[in-house]
């Protein structure tokens, strides 16, 4: 068949001229004995005029792949239609014999032999009448159709009756690479005989197309892996055509992302860093033509390092919603893995896989782990290739259950329980908690717990005979050791009590020092005063009370003693003067307690007048004016001590050098004598606060603490004076 083609073309007598519209590259050829002419390459089939009754008959239609080239490298594949025409037998027998009627071409070996032999003989007889016919060829492709009209003449010779007249070869019908083309041929004679055949236009697997059709020229990819990078070589691009290289991840839910696209027009090497290489990384390259063919290469599918990298980039996320556990395994590529739940009683310990509970990991989104209830000790492992790749635990979530729960496995058949621990399932009869103790002690209690419902059911099997998992609380059987703490407390208390009882005196002394120490932090702590008073009973009582009260506030008070009369009264004078001098030297406060006798003594210094009986009598509020009352004499005599003390005080008062404070017993003394007005005076007990403040001195912060003591001191003084 293929050998006949070039032979027939070599014997062509009349070359069909291209007529009418259509592709100027269409060509028509007939074998010897036939004359044909291309009428129109693009007619509307069915509109041809009807011809006479069947004169020429169609014997066979054959389609051959061919190439139509504009340039040697710019060819387009197409199908060539070859129609074999034959003359029906003689008119009388023509109706009877249908030998050469519609025969769709099957094997062309006999026909080709006939056609080859007939041709030389047909050329001799031109004197016979001709038979003409209109041959119509229609080519139907997806989206396009074309009808070609060919006029044929064949000489009518009786020898040709019932034999093949010749071949008509039309070149060609075009269609896209690899598409189906439906070609039919028929004559316009009355007895409509139609031959049709359907054939696929050759695609790039046809060797003749690979060299000539530009769309079949795809660049080749070569991948050379390295340690840190992978080099992709693109070679064989057609000159003048640019091509595109596309890197993408190929997985079941579509190719992910835009990948990386490189467009260039010369052969090039693309360098890919090694940490981007994943098993599902694919490379595609195609030329920049219309409907190009692509070369795809996925060279990393069996690369172990790429798989390691993929696992490093994949992530398992667990969600708990109520009693349902949802797992989602996300990875850049499709993973073939299984999700296996495991039990991890100790956070840093091994996680024991629970067989029979596994589920294959579905790549599309989160999947529910049906039948499994969440518990803090549960983890989910991802197994692939016989090893654990990922693990995710539920420990940090707020879930019902305790970390020290025990996992019990119940075989659905015989309802026997065993405890899952340390990689094996120990029967309850030989189970000890914490590894020590009496085996089987808790067997009955645990069985009762399971029966009563105190345990949490972690696995609900889908069928009745599956295993059931229970998480039973164990904390109520494990005892705590608070008794040791209690013993420590008892011992400590006993020691303390013993110590207190044995060292009684020391403790008492310590307590007393605490109390005294607290009291000594009084408001007037650290200050010293000298209390000068007259030697009369009321003054002495007042002085005693004041001294006691002031000492309780922390003031160190020294009081001038009284008692005696005459020379006996003068006895303590040297001491008094010494005290006075010391007080002045140390800047201590000197309190002048004014009682009636003291006022009388002070009046001696009034207006510089000394020992003037009249003036004394005149200014004294006690006793009559004119005569020095005998009652005055004892008062003057008793005040000699005070007067002697004042003799030290007056010059200092005049210069205002010392810290003098005058305290006037207001019940007995109406006014401060003029001589002593240089010093601040306070009427006690009504102006006790001011008096104490004056004693406290410039320390301002002490002033706030004086309030509680004022009342106490005033009351003590009132009681002493009132007696």
């Amino acid at each position, binding site marked *: 068949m293929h050998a006949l083609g070039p032979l027939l073309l070599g014997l062509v007598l009349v070359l069909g001229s291209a007529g009418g519209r259509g592709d100027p590259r269409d060509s028509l050829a007939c074998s010897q004995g036939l004359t044909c002419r291309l009428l129109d390459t693009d007619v509307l089939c069915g509109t041809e005029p009807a011809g006479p009754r069947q004169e020429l008959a169609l014997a066979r239609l054959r389609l051959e792949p061919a190439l139509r080239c504009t340039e040697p490298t710019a060819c387009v594949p197409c199908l060539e239609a070859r129609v074999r025409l034959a003359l029906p037998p003689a008119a009388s027998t023509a109706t009877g014999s249908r030998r050469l009627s519609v025969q769709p071409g099957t094997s062309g070996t006999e026909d080709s032999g006939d056609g080859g032999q007939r041709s030389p003989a047909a050329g001799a007889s031109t004197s016979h009448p001709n038979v003409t016919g209109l041959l119509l060829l229609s080519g139907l492709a997806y989206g396009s159709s074309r009808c070609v009209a060919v006029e044929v003449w064949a000489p009518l010779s009786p020898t040709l009756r019932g034999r093949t007249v010749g071949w008509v070869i039309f070149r060609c019908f075009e269609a896209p690479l690899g598409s189906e083309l439906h070609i039919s041929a028929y004559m316009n004679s009355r007895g409509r005989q139609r031959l049709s055949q359907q054939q696929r236009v050759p695609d790039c697997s046809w060797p003749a197309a690979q060299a000539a059709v530009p769309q079949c020229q795809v660049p080749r990819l070569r991948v050379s892996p390295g340690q840190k990078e992978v080099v992709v070589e693109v070679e064989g691009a057609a000159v003048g055509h640019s091509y595109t290289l596309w890197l993408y991840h190929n997985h079941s839910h579509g190719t992910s992302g835009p990948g990386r696209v490189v467009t260039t027009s010369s052969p090039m090497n693309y360098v890919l860093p090694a940490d981007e290489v994943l098993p599902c990384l694919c490379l595609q390259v195609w030329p920049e033509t219309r409907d190009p063919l692509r070369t795809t290469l996925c060279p990393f599918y069996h690369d172990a390092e790429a798989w390691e990298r993929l696992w490093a980039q994949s992530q398992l996320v667990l969600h708990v919603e109520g009693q349902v556990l949802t797992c989602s395994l996300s990875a850049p590529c499709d993973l073939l893995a299984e999700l296996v739940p495991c039990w991890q009683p100790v956070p840093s310990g091994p996680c024991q896989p629970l067989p029979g509970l596994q589920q294959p990991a579905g790549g599309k989104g989160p999947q529910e782990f049906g039948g499994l209830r969440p518990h803090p000790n549960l983890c989910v492992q991802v197994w692939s290739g016989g090893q654990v790749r990922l693990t995710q635990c539920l420990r940090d979530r707020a879930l019902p259950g305790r970390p020290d729960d025990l996992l019990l496995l119940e075989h659905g058949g015989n309802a026997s329980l065993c405890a899952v621990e340390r990689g094996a399932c120990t029967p309850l009869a030989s189970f000890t908690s914490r590894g020590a103790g009496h085996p089987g002690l808790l067997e009955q209690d645990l069985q009762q717990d399971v029966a009563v419902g105190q345990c949490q059911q972690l696995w609900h099997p889908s069928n009745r005979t599956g295993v059931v998992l229970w998480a039973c609380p164990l904390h109520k059987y494990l005892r705590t050791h608070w008794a*040791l703490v209690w013993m420590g407390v008892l011992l400590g208390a006993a020691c303390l009590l013993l110590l207190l009882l044995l060292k009684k005196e020391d403790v008492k002394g310590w307590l007393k020092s605490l109390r005294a120490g607290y009291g000594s932090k009084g408001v007037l702590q650290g200050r010293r005063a000298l209390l000068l008073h007259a030697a009369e009973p009321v003054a002495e009582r007042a002085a005693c009370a004041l001294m006691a009260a002031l000492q309780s506030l922390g003031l160190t008070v020294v009081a001038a003693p009284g008692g005696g009369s005459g020379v006996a009264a003068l006895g303590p004078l040297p001491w008094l003067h010494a005290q006075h001098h010391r007080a002045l030297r140390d800047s201590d406060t000197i309190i002048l307690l004014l009682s009636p006798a003291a006022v009388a003594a002070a009046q001696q210094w009034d207006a510089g007048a000394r020992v003037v009986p009249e003036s004394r009598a005149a200014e004294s509020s006690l006793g009559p004016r004119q005569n020095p009352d005998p009652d005055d004499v004892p008062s003057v005599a008793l005040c000699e001590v005070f007067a002697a003390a004042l003799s030290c005080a007056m010059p200092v008062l005049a210069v205002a050098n010392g810290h003098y404070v005058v305290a006037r017993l207001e019940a007995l003394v109406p006014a401060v004598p003029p001589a002593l007005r240089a010093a601040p005076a306070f009427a006690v007990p009504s102006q006790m606060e001011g008096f104490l403040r004056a004693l406290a001195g410039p320390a301002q912060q002490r002033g706030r603490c004086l309030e509680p003591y004022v009342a106490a001191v005033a009351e003590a003084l009132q009681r002493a004076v009132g007696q």
Partner: protein
Amino acid sequence: MRNGDDLEGFDGEASSASMISAASSPYQPTTEPVSQRRGLGGLRCDLDYLRGTFGRLKLAEVLLALTAFICIETIMECSPCEGLYFFEFVSCSALVVTGALLLLFSLNLHTRIPQINWNLTDLVNTGLSTFFFSFASVVLAALNHKTGAEIAAVVFGFLAMAVYAVNTFLAVRKWQLSSRQQSSRQSSDYIRARTESREVVHRPEIQRLDA
């Protein structure tokens, strides 16, 4: 009032011969005989007490309570645990209190704290311990009797109860005896003081002062 026995043990440090007058005189030496034996920090071990009945009983009680406590502490798991905790508490408290009392009595520290009636304290302790040990041992025997440690604790609990019971009985008897003795001594002191005061009236030096 001291009788002659105290004078015999007395080294004669702090009393002078002039103060010793006739046996019927109200002026008796008031000094304490000072002991020469000195222990660590003033403490000395009273071996007589330890060798005596009460000392031995106390030692036995302490040892039995300690053993029971140790037995119960070795148990790691229990069902139910309440009996165990109660027995633990009782044995621990009895151990500490009895041990403290033993220490006090054997080192004679109880004499330094005269405010507390130590005999009564001891009696109360032994009585309560008897009762509680019996109760706790019964409860433990009823609730937990499976493991060896539990059974051992029960046994030691009952033994301790028995020793405490004996101690209680003896302590009660001693207490009754001492209270009878004390009342009789008090009355005899009173009589002696009264007769001596009558004699004093006839003393010449006292008469001189009145003049």
